[in-house]
């Protein structure tokens, strides 16, 4: 790929101030191709509108785009409420309209999926700019880019430079993991996160909804799970809450993938579902503590079948995340019935085989309800027999590149998270470390590289709740957003710093309390 986007970079360099996030376009994540001219057009709150191109397959009946038009009009002109006087320089040409055209079947009322086309092209020219996309998903991405092109010049006038942009994502799976089990997150926080995700062109919310600590998901089939397993009865996600999240996400081109992690990480499940967890033994006696899900009972699998049947109906995405990480064998080992089962099955003393036995059954259940599965890497590491197409999420930091090589060599698609655990904080600009990672930096054939679906920034919740979620996530996750969207040659740290500083202030002006990268200030 040639040095595209250089024109923009040069422009940015000229405008880039010392320490402040001043006016000037700063695109984040950087599009595939940007050709920009110095010719500046004015945009005014009163005269400018975003509309459907008559040729578009999506018209005013497409609520998804209607809402997006309204949203972006707000983002563009709310940058600075104090400045909306008449244009100061009458000689300048005005941009009056952005016409949005969806070329193929719009998919307006569908849910986005892993193959959704997010590409778009943008031509900004007076008096009318054109945004063209195959599907609404690309139109959403293009609207975000368009909004980022508009800046306020030194007189406070909204300005956009004539330019041509062609853009599409490098990876189809660009996710953020939130953990609502260690701490409950109010719906408001989740929706705010979805807003910020859209500003960074993320397209997957990986919702780690339950874990040892609490079970906030309110199941219609098994209401006792959250009645007994949530932190409190006000710390639950009702079906209507979940629906709100899914629809809010859809309107922003974001998939919601729920994770129901098992057989480990399930302490909270036990409170509302008797006999689900393995009773641990202390010698010959039950110790009153419980371990992972009990894999030897038929009742376990009939429970899971019903639960996943519900989950697969509630969450429309093609995939569910089945977890499978960090299974602790001690409790299984202590339980005499499990030991008998092991003997009977011929597993010897290899509890990984028991884990595999369990996980295979859960994978079967998932495919019965027509869902693709995502699992944490242990499932692959422990040689569970996986159906082709099962996605393996790599999270262990140590030798993660080798893990990627092995998973893809075995023919499985992979999602990278290992270098992107944002709950791990340290002093200073750690975003640079996230930014430098390249998900294809492992040894493997081109076919193997193609199996890398993308990655996810994970914000585990042990030390995170609504009080600190947003500043801990943003703009650190933005670094990963660009890594997963932009071309692999976009890696100049200084340029990234300058753009990200402006982008961070833009997020702040849009109501996201994104923390600063370093000293300085925002112009609003």
């Amino acid at each position, binding site marked *: 790929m040639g040095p595209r986007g250089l024109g923009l970079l040069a422009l940015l360099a000229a405008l880039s101030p010392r320490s402040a996030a001043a006016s000037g376009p700063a695109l984040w994540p950087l599009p595939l191709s940007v050709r920009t001219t110095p010719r500046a057009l004015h945009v005014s709150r009163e005269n400018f509108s975003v509309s459907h191109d008559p040729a578009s397959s999506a018209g005013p009946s497409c609520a998804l785009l209607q809402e997006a038009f309204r949203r972006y009009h707000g983002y563009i002109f709310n940058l600075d409420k104090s400045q909306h006087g008449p244009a100061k320089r009458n000689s300048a040409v005005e941009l009056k309209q952005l016409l949005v055209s969806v070329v193929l079947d719009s998919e307006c009322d569908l849910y986005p999926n892993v193959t959704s086309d997010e590409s778009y092209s943008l031509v900004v020219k007076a008096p009318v700019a054109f945004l063209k996309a195959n599907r609404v998903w690309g139109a959403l991405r293009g609207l975000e880019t368009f909004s980022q092109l508009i800046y306020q010049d030194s007189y406070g006038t909204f300005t956009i430079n004539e330019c041509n942009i062609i853009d599409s994502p490098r990876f189809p799976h660009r996710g953020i993991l939130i953990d609502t089990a260690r701490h409950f997150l109010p719906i408001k926080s989740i929706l705010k996160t979805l807003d910020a995700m859209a500003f960074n062109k993320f397209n997957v919310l990986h919702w780690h909804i339950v874990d040892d600590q609490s079970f906030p998901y309110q199941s219609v089939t098994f209401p006792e799970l959250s009645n007994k397993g949530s932190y409190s009865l006000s710390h639950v996600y009702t079906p209507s809450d979940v629906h709100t999240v899914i629809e809010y996400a859809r309107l922003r081109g974001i998939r919601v993938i729920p994770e129901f992690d098992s057989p480990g990480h399930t302490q909270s499940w036990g409170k509302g579902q008797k006999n689900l967890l393995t009773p641990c033994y202390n010698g010959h006696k039950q110790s009153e503590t419980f371990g992972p899900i009990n894999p030897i009972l038929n009742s376990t699998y009939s429970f899971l079948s019903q639960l996943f049947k519900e989950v697969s109906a509630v969450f429309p995405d093609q995939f569910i995340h089945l977890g499978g990480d960090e299974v602790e064998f001690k409790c299984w080992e202590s339980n005499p019935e499990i030991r008998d089962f092991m003997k009977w099955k011929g597993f010897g003393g290899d509890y990984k085989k028991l884990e595999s036995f369990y996980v295979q059954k859960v994978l079967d259940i998932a495919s019965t309800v027509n869902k693709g599965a995502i699992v944490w890497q242990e499932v692959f590491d422990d040689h569970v027999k996986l159906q082709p197409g099962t996605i393996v999420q790599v999270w262990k930091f140590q030798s993660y590149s080798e893990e990627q090589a092995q998973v893809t060599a075995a023919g499985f698609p992979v999602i990278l998270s290992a270098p992107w655990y944002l709950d791990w904080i340290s002093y200073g600009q750690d975003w640079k470390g996230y930014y430098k990672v390249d998900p294809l930096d492992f040894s493997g054939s081109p076919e193997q590289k193609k199996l890398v679906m993308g990655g996810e920034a994970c914000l585990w919740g042990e030390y995170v709740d609504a009080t600190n979620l947003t500043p801990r996530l943003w703009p650190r996750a933005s670094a990963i957003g660009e890594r997963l969207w932009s071309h692999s040659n976009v890696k100049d740290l200084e340029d990234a710093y300058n753009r990200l500083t402006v982008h961070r202030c833009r997020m702040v002006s849009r109501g996201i309390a994104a923390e*600063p990268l370093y000293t300085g200030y925002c112009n609003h």
Partner: protein
Amino acid sequence: MAASGLWLPLLLAAALAGRAAALWPWPQYIETSEAHYAIFPHDFQFRYHSSSAAQPGCSVLDEAFQRYRDLLFSSRAWYPPEPTRKLHAPVKNSLVVLVVTPGCNQLPSLESLENYTLTINDDHCFLLSETVWGALRGLETFSQLVWRSPEGMFLINKTEIEDFPRFSHRGLLLDTSRHYLPLTTIMDTLDAMAYNKFNVFHWHLVDDSSFPYDSYTFPELTRKGSYNPATHIYTAQDVKMVIEYARLRGIRVLAEFDTPGHTLSWGPGVPGLLTPCYSGSHPSGTFGPVNPILNSTYEFMSSFFLEVSSVFPDFYLHLGGDEVDFTCWKSNPDIQNFMKEKGFGSDFKQLESYYIQTLLNIVSAYDKGYVVWQEVFDNNVKVRPDTIIQVWREEMPVHYAKEMELITKAGFRALLSAPWYLNHITYGPDWSEIYMVEPLEFKGSPQQKALVIGGEACMWGEYVDSTNLAPRLWPRAGAVAERLWSNKLVTNLDSAFKRLTEFRCELLSSLCNKLGMF
């Protein structure tokens, strides 16, 4: 400490008493029981005792009564109990406050007494304190003692508390130069400080990055040195408001104007103030620390600190003095000549000392005391014997405990900050390390230990602004607050964890209600 023998069993008893005793910071002496009293929001009032030196009209307490009434009741839904329901608990209708020493309009000082006694028993619901500042601390404790039954009743246990701070300087540093902090953020921080019984707001106003302090003597300083002279400044009115807001919470405002280093933002507004750096025989166009060889420098400092001395009424000013980089001074031929003339040789520490001594003389003339960073002591600057030295370096030139030893051995008062740089973050519950620091753990005589007047939690602003300040500060700074207030034996981490967890939620509910969050 006399009470120390009593103390441990009491802590245990308190821990068993459950949520009623989730006090933070832990009081010096507490006796509490399961017996409790009911409080009805509509009937309850804070009252002045007839023989109290403070009476209605005392702004500090009038406003505090209102504040604590809101904190206790207004934020929470309350339904009167059903009339048929029999009340088991006797009722308390008022907290009676008696302040011994008059004085409602003065400012808190380093010498202010903050001790108080709180008696909640069958006969009394009574807060006794020497000064209004002690009454403020007692009101905070009282508010922490009130809890709610599952039915929503407000209750308070039978309790006797005698309390006073272990250290008299319990500070929190905010840095408004690296990032500007809006006034609302500063005031929210002052609120949270009061909940933690902090009593000094160390305001690191200006630094290299920006100069937000709007000086009326030198308006060019902010015009040229602030991030944005229209929006990112603190006017005289703003400063006044912060000082009064702090005063009403018993908090001193200690202003820092750090020189001769950390002053790049001063340069644009005061031409000639900073040292021009040289590259070979030519000025390089960059600038270093304040130029210590010009009379004009000291004339400027005289006028500037005259203003500062009157704007900030606290007896103490913080004069900085840290991290002076000698590279630029070394490069400048005029400075080299001055060094020769003065016989400093090539020891730039002597030049630094020369500057600081001159500055200290200026400030002394304005009847101010001063606090300085440890370098001033390390570099053997001759300072007044009543100077307060703030220790911030963890390992260099010596471990901070050794530094405390040396400073107090030389007879100076010391403030500890080195282990409490809260801007440094790591994964996990780092509050416990912060908590386990013992400020007097160094070799030295009792006289030396007595020279440690306290410490400060520092939140430097390189990576902090109003988007992330509060969650980075709280509840971590709470760990410092308890270390500086409570008895040195209060070091049980399990108890601290339980109480701090509870307290964090209390902070949240008051902040959330105020900010309309969540």
